[in-house]
């Protein structure tokens, strides 16, 4: 561990705000990029299932 204490780690030698802002925003954007296609797949399957069921009823 490079830092002596946890508060020093958070403070980052006075640059804490910059470092944590950069990491925080990047983490949020990465998570959005993973969640989005997963949700999209669920929605695609749901839509397609509904369509299939409707077709089965009419035929």
């Amino acid at each position, binding site marked *: 561990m490079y830092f002596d204490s946890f508060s020093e780690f958070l403070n980052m030698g006075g*640059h804490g705000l910059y470092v944590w802002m950069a*990491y925080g925003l990047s983490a949020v954007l990465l998570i959005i990029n993973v969640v989005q*296609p997963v949700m999209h797949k669920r929605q695609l399957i749901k839509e397609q299932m509904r369509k299939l069921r409707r077709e089965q009823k009419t035929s």
Partner: protein
Amino acid sequence: MWKTFVAWFHRMGSPKWFYEISGRWIPWFAAAAVLLIAVGTVWGLAFAPADYQQGNSFRIIYIHVPAAILAQSIFFLMAIAGGIGLIWKMKVADMVAKSCAPFGATMTFIALFTGAIWGKPTWGAWWVWDARLTSMLILLFLYFGVIALQSAFDSKQSAARASAILSLVGIVNIPIIKYSVEWWNTLHQPATFKLTEKPAMPAEMWMPLLVMVVGFYCLFAVILMLRTRNEILEREKRTHWVQGLLSKES
């Protein structure tokens, strides 16, 4: 050798095959991405030594550099895939090209944003109209252009063709980004990793960076496969195999 390559190329062109093989690969790449990014982040934030000039603000490098490398590699891949789609009319290539754009734009944005945050304590300015920064901003606009073109056409084929042409033209920007720090006088520091030389920083500093770069590549692979699979599901929904797949899911 050539024959196996051609066979592989043809199989890659089959959406069904791509769907199946990527389904098997995703868990491995996802596990590698989570592990590498977690290790790289903790290592870079808590264990790497501070820079003697920049102090701890230098730790931003562990996302800034991977994001910038990915932003350019993804654009390159997008243009290549788009070109393959143009020439050989390969549907999977078009879908891969389309699936590259959102994550590529995110990576470019992260590189620019973390660069701005890093610039404030280091250069005293959030933004300067420097060659490296400006060419990265152009890259972001190229990504936006590709995303816009992808949704601007009713026909998937026209959308793929238009965005492939834009990405192939936009590829001239990639060497400009790369050499911008050498061709022009710039505030931006030169590349951390070079193929021909050892990194200028000590190993305790660049090793976590290398871990992060590989982790980001794995994450990109996961997102690219997830998005391409969605494209396949959507475009092939009338086919027998997708309908069979769906009946298994329910």
